[in-house]
């Protein structure tokens, strides 16, 4: 049993101090999370009540520094409340996919045989559906909302997590500490949950951060297509969809939520990449 090969120096490079990009990304995510959590108590206008004339440009009025939308509602308030919905959908769906996928993957790796084949067929079946088409079909049957979005997006992204967890579990199945536990008479439950699962948490968690960014974009795409969060609840995708009708006269209605989505996705990706590099280093470097 040899330790996996690592390129000398690569680990050291990855272990360098966090740069400004990471700090910025982290700060944006923390700020966003605080705003989303505090949306109810912050001194913001109600997201579905008019505060002034329609299509007020940004930076012309206080406290509506981001102006008003086509209906005269506060863009700032809708952006913050939209963050709440977009983050809830993104984190909820990612958690669901990570937990379900992680468990399925570890189970498949541990049980092998028929169970592994059954789980494999199930995952392949989910993967074989074009995701957007499946989501559109689901939206036609069930009434769209935060919970249905979380459930359907979560279900769709079970397979990548399951495969990742299975790969991580397989690489640990033959490690000495697992053999030792088995020799000491550990049962299935103990082997699964105490020995195998903890090793899979790090890769799954780091991947989840990257997936969270993808989920935000999926929610945006669905709301843009009109099958996401129904009005008047604000979500970033719905804000972009509503603003596109006024692109010629009020481009800020599209640009503001687009910028928010761009920054968030970029931040999740920056943090996610960094975490993944760390996890690779840990699992690659330490036996």
């Amino acid at each position: 049993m040899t330790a996996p090969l690592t390129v000398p120096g690569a680990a050291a490079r990855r272990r360098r101090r966090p740069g400004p990009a990471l700090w910025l990304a982290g700060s944006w995510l923390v700020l966003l999370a605080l705003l989303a959590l505090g949306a109810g108590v912050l001194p913001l206008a109600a997201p579905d009540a008019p505060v002034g004339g329609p299509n007020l440009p940004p930076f012309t009025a206080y406290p509506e520094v981001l102006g008003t939308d086509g209906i005269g509602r506060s863009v700032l308030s809708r952006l913050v409340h939209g963050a709440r919905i977009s983050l809830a959908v993104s984190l909820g769906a990612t958690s669901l996919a990570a937990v379900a996928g992680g468990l399925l993957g570890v189970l498949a790796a541990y049980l092998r045989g028929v169970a592994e084949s059954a789980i494999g067929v199930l995952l392949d079946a989910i993967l074989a559906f074009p995701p957007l088409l499946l989501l559109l079909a689901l939206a036609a049957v069930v009434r769209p909302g935060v919970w249905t979005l979380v459930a359907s997006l979560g279900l769709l992204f079970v397979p990548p997590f399951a495969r990742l967890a299975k790969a991580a579990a397989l690489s640990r199945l033959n490690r000495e500490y697992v053999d030792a536990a088995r020799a000491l008479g550990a049962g299935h439950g103990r082997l699964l949950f105490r020995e195998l699962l903890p090793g899979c948490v790090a890769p799954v968690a780091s991947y989840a951060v990257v997936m969270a960014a993808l989920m935000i974009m999926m929610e945006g795409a669905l709301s843009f297509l009109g099958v996401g969060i129904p009005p008047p609840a604000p979500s970033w995708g719905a804000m972009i969809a509503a603003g596109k009708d006024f692109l010629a006269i009020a481009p800020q209605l599209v640009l503001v939520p687009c910028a928010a989505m761009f920054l968030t996705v970029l931040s999740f990706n920056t943090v996610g990449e960094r975490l993944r590099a760390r996890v690779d280093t840990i699992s690659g470097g330490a036996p």
Partner: protein
Amino acid sequence: MIVFAAACSTGAQPQEARPAPGKGGAATVVLGVEAVRGLDPAQLFNLTPSGDANRLSAIFGLLFWSDASTGEVNPGLGESLTASGDGKEWTMKLRPGLTFSDGTPLDAEAVRFNYERIADPKTRSPLATLVKGATFEVSDERTLVVKLREGNRAFDRVIATSLAFVGSPAAIEKDPAAFAQQPVGAGPFMLKEWVRDDHMTLTRNPSYYRQGAPLLDTLTFKVIADPAQRVNAVASGQAQAAVTGSDLSFIQRAKGSGLQVAQAPAGGGPMLIFNTARAPFDDPKARKAVVLALDTKEMAQVVDPGSTAPDSLYGASSPFHPSASAVPAQDVAGAQRLLDELAATGKPLRFTVSMPASGFFRRTAEYLQSRLSRLRNIQVEIEVLDNAALDRKVFTNRDFALSAQIVPVADPEPNLYKLLHSDGQTNYMGYHDPEVDAALDRGRDSADEAERREAYATVERLVMADLPVLPYRSQVAYTVHSSKLTGLTLQGDGSLLYDRLGLGGS
């Protein structure tokens, strides 16, 4: 000779790319909705300009057509339409020598065949109520006498809007089911190729009755779902005309892109429709509270920037347009009082706004929700539905509280009658008021202009007091087109007359 030709072509450079009217050419018109149920004159389904009205006009032509602004009836394939004194007997005279594009004659017998097919319960035509109880007699080759069960002095308008299209009886008899997919008419164009959800290519009908018409050789209808993309298609030269649908904000956008807009202001337009057949809007107080809470001027501006709010059911150019605004003025305190009264009787106003998903209607729903929620004792939910779901829920099952529909009103007949009469075809509100019915009947059956004016003023007074509907944006039928395309005449609800279209402009 060569020099002369060269000089000539240089001099005529701007003319070269676009042949003068009568010299053919091809034009593309962009519509919004595919003719999903085919094109059968007995099965008119989506007779809107962005739907089937334009296709039908090109393929079938029109026996008679009505001016999009005034509702005045003009001859088309038909020559004249005259009523007996009581409006019970109508004599339709056709032009001589009309033939369908399959060579069979379009005579009085063919029109009778089409109308009896509509009346036949087996056809299940949505137009059947229009000819219920009527009999049709062919008195000579070109003359059809229609005897109605009840007098209707406005039946010419019914013909011009709903019974204007006739198909070839030979083609219909051969295969009635296939006819909708392979329509044969006597219009200016014939169907050549139809690729569903993409385009429909039509070629000039050489046997069209008017000498030298149509001007174009080829006409193509394209389907683009997004209205902004329809305007862009014309701006980029992929198409010569586009029917953008209900949003008036595209007029400004099109003009900004250097395009022309053929427009016809009319009355009516998008209306809120209250379901008066069930709670909560069976109570006039609830309807009044909603209407008084709204500032229709602001509403028009918000839901469709650049548009205005109507002040009457009738258009500004209509003889029935009142001198003062007929729409109730905003009175928030009054609305609150009504809402409080409703709450005090244990019926606080709670309802759902059911709207189509298009930008205009979605903004209407969000506007209503945002403005009404400022008041107390009212709770408004929004439900945005795709077209199929809306059709089923609102227009078929009438399972709604507040929705909207577009009802253009050129002359009050026939659209206002259909909307407000107890057994009107588009009375989805389930509205029933004997006084309104009587006034609508009076307006329809009178030949005297002064009496009609009185009748329609009564209709407006009663409707604006009882509020089964609220028009909230003025209606303008329009088609965006490039300056090359000429001869755009808007008829009916805003579709074109295709024998006049040419590529002669600059």
